[in-house]
C-alpha cells in the first residue's frame, strides 16, 4: 500500500525529468535549428530529401540520394547559390505516409529546409505535402499517382511524368506495333500498382485491348508462382507488370522457370536500372517500358552527368538522373527566389530548364508534360525502340 502511495512522487519527479529532457532536446534542437534558420542570413541553405532509406524501397531512396548529392556537390563546387552552400538533410520516410509526415515535419520545422525532393512513393508524398504546402516549402516529388495533380498545393511539383502519360504511350505501342490483344496484368498492391493499372484500363478501351486477368501481389512478396500459374492457363499475348524492378526481374525469372514464354512490358522508367538486368539475366530480355530518359543519349547534359557520376563512383541510374535534375531545378528556383518562398515558387512554376531528362517545364498542376520514349531490354542493354514524339 505504502509503495503504491509513493507512485505520485515518482510520477512527478519523472514528469519533471521528462519535461527537462524535452526542453533540453528542444534547446539542442533549436540551436541546430537556429543555425539553419540563421542560415537565411548565414552561409548554408538546407534542402531535404524525403525518400525511403530503409525497407523494401530503400534502393530507390539510395539512387535518389546519390543524384541529389551529386547535384549539390556540383552546385557547391561552383560557388553555391547566391553565395551560399547547399546542405542536404536526408529523411527516411520508409515509404509510409506517417513516417513521411514525421520526417517532413522535422525537416521544415526543425532543420528549416527551403525545398524538399521526394518522396519516391505517392501516398507518403500525398501525406507529406499536407505539411510542406502550408509551410510554403517547395516539394519536388517522384510519385506516380494522378492524385498528386489534384492537391491544389501550389508548392508541389512532380519531376517525373504521371502514370496517365506513361501508360497510354506504352500501351499504344504494344497494341499498334506488337499487335497485342489480350493482356494479363500483374501489379503490386500499392498505390503505384493500382494507379498504373487504373490508367491502363482507361486507355485499353480506346485501343481495343482487353485485360484477360488482373493479378495482384503484396509489396515485399517474392513468390509469384501462384499468379503466374493462373496467367499461364489464360494464354495472354503479353503481360503488363507493375512493380519495383527487382520484383519485375523475379517475376520474369519465375515465369521463365514455369515455362511461360510471353512478351512482358511495364509502364514506366522505374524499370530503368542496371539492377533489372543483373537480377533478371536473360529472363528480362525483350522487356518493354516507357521512359522519359535515355542514359545513352548523346546530349551535353547527359555527358556531364555521367562524367561526374563516374568521378564520384556513383552508378548512373535513371532515378539518380531524375533526382539530379530535380535538385538542379530546385537550386535554380531557390537562387532566383532569393529567400522568398513566393518568388521561388513563381520561378519554379515558370522554369524552362534543359535537364538530362529532357526539357523541364511544369503545367498549372505542377506536372511535366514531356512525351516518353519506348525502351526495350536487348542483349542486356536498354535500347530506345521508339523515340518520343
Amino acid at each position, binding site marked *: 500500500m505504502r509503495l503504491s502511495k509513493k507512485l505520485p512522487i515518482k510520477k512527478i519527479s519523472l514528469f519533471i525529468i521528462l519535461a527537462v529532457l524535452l526542453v533540453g532536446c528542444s534547446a539542442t534542437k533549436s540551436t541546430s535549428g537556429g543555425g539553419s534558420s540563421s542560415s537565411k542570413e548565414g552561409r548554408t541553405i538546407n534542402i531535404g530529401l524525403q525518400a525511403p532509406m530503409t525497407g*523494401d524501397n*530503400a534502393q530507390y531512396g539510395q539512387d535518389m540520394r546519390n543524384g541529389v548529392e551529386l547535384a549539390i556537390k556540383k552546385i557547391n563546387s561552383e560557388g553555391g547559390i547566391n553565395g551560399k552552400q547547399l546542405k542536404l538533410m536526408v529523411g527516411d520516410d520508409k515509404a509510409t505516409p506517417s513516417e513521411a509526415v514525421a520526417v517532413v515535419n522535422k525537416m521544415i520545422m526543425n532543420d528549416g529546409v527551403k525545398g524538399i525532393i521526394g518522396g519516391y512513393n505517392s501516398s507518403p508524398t500525398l501525406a507529406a505535402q499536407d505539411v510542406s504546402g502550408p509551410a510554403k516549402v517547395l516539394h519536388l516529388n517522384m510519385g506516380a499517382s494522378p492524385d498528386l495533380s489534384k492537391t491544389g498545393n501550389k508548392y508541389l511539383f512532380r519531376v517525373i511524368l504521371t502514370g496517365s502519360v506513361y501508360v497510354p504511350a506504352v500501351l499504344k505501342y504494344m497494341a499498334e506495333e506488337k499487335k497485342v490483344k489480350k493482356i494479363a496484368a500483374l501489379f503490386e498492391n500499392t498505390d503505384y500498382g493500382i494507379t498504373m493499372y487504373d490508367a491502363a484500363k482507361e486507355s485499353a478501351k480506346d485501343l481495343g485491348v482487353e485485360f484477360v486477368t488482373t493479378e495482384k501481389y503484396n509489396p515485399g512478396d517474392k513468390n509469384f508462382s501462384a499468379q503466374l*500459374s493462373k496467367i499461364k492457363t489464360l494464354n495472354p499475348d503479353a503481360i503488363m507488370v507493375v512493380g519495383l524492378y527487382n520484383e519485375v526481374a523475379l517475376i520474369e525469372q519465375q515465369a521463365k522457370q*514455369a515455362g511461360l514464354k510471353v512478351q512482358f512490358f511495364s509502364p514506366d522508367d522505374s524499370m530503368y536500372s542496371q539492377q533489372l538486368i543483373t*537480377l533478371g539475366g536473360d529472363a528480362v530480355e525483350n522487356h518493354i517500358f516507357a521512359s522519359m530518359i535515355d542514359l545513352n543519349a548523346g546530349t551535353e547534359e547527359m555527358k556531364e552527368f555521367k562524367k561526374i557520376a563516374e568521378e564520384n563512383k556513383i552508378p548512373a541510374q535513371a532515378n539518380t538522373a531524375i533526382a539530379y535534375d530535380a535538385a538542379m531545378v530546385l537550386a535554380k528556383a531557390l537562387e532566383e527566389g532569393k529567400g522568398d518562398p513566393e518568388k521561388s515558387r513563381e520561378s519554379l512554376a515558370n522554369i524552362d530548364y534543359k535537364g538530362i531528362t529532357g526539357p523541364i517545364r511544369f503545367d498549372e498542376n505542377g506536372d511535366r508534360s514531356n512525351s516518353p520514349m519506348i525502351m526495350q531490354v536487348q542483349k542486356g542493354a536498354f535500347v530506345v525502340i521508339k523515340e518520343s514524339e
Partner: protein
Amino acid sequence: MFFDQLINGIVLGSIYALMAIGYTMVWNVLRFINFAHGEVYMGGAFVSLYLLLLDTPIWLAYLGGVLAGALLGYLMEKAVYMRMRNAPKLNLLIAAIGISIFLQNLAQYIWGATPERLTSPFLYKNIQIGDMMINQHYIFIIILTILVMMVLELFMNRTIMGKAVQAASQNISATQLMGINANKVISVTFAIGSAVGALAGILVGPVFLVYPTMGIFAGLKGFTASVMGGMGNIPGAMVAGLLLGIIESFAAGFISSGYRDAVAMVILLFILLVRPQGIFGKIIQQKV
C-alpha cells in the same frame, strides 16, 4: 495449374519445414519463440552471397553460409539468451525482437538494401515431365531438404548429443544426468537449428533473392509450421511445413493471392484454438 501449384507448394513447404525446425528445437530446450530466427535465414544467405562475390566455389560458399548461420545462432545464444536464463519469457521475446531489428539493419548497413541473386548451378535448367516444366533448382531444394531431415533424424536418435537435446525438451536438467552440460546442449541446439535455417535462406536465395528483410515472412511461416506440427516436435514440424506450403500455394492459386499470408495466419489461429498441441501433438507423447 494443379500440378504447378503442387510443385510450388512442395518447394515452399520444404523451406518452411527447414525454418520450422529451428523454432521447434529452440522451443524444445528453452520454451520460447526465437523471433530472431528469420535473421539467421537472412544472414546465411548473405554470407553465401558475399563468399560468391569473392569467387569462392559455389559449394564452398553454400557451406560457408550454413556455418555462418550456425555461428550466428550460437552467438545469439551466448551473447544474449544465456545471460537471460532467469528472466521471464516475455523479456526473452523482446530481446529476440531487438536482435531481429538489429541484424536486419546491420545487414542493410553492410550489404545495402538492394536485393541480390544468389547463383545456383541449376537455376536455368528445367526438367520436362509430360508437358510440365520443373526447374532443376526446385528439385535440388526438395532433395536437399529430405537429406537434411534424414541426417537430423539420425543425429537426434543415434547420437548422445541428439538424445540429450531430446531429453532437454522434457527437462533441461535431465541432460545433466546424461553427463552433458545443459548450456552445451542449448548451444548445440541453437547451432543446429540455425544451420538448418541458414540453409533454407541459401536455397531460397537463387529463387526469391537475398535482401535484409527476407527473414520476416519466412520466419513467420516457419514459426506457423512449427506450431502446426506441435511445438517441440521435430518430425511434426517437417510435415507441417510441407503441408503449410502446399495449402498456401493452393489458396493463393485458387482463392486470392493478396490474402496468401493471411491463410497461414488463419491456420495458425485455428490450430491454436482447436489443437494447441499441434496436428502431430500425439507423436511427442508417444516418444516420451
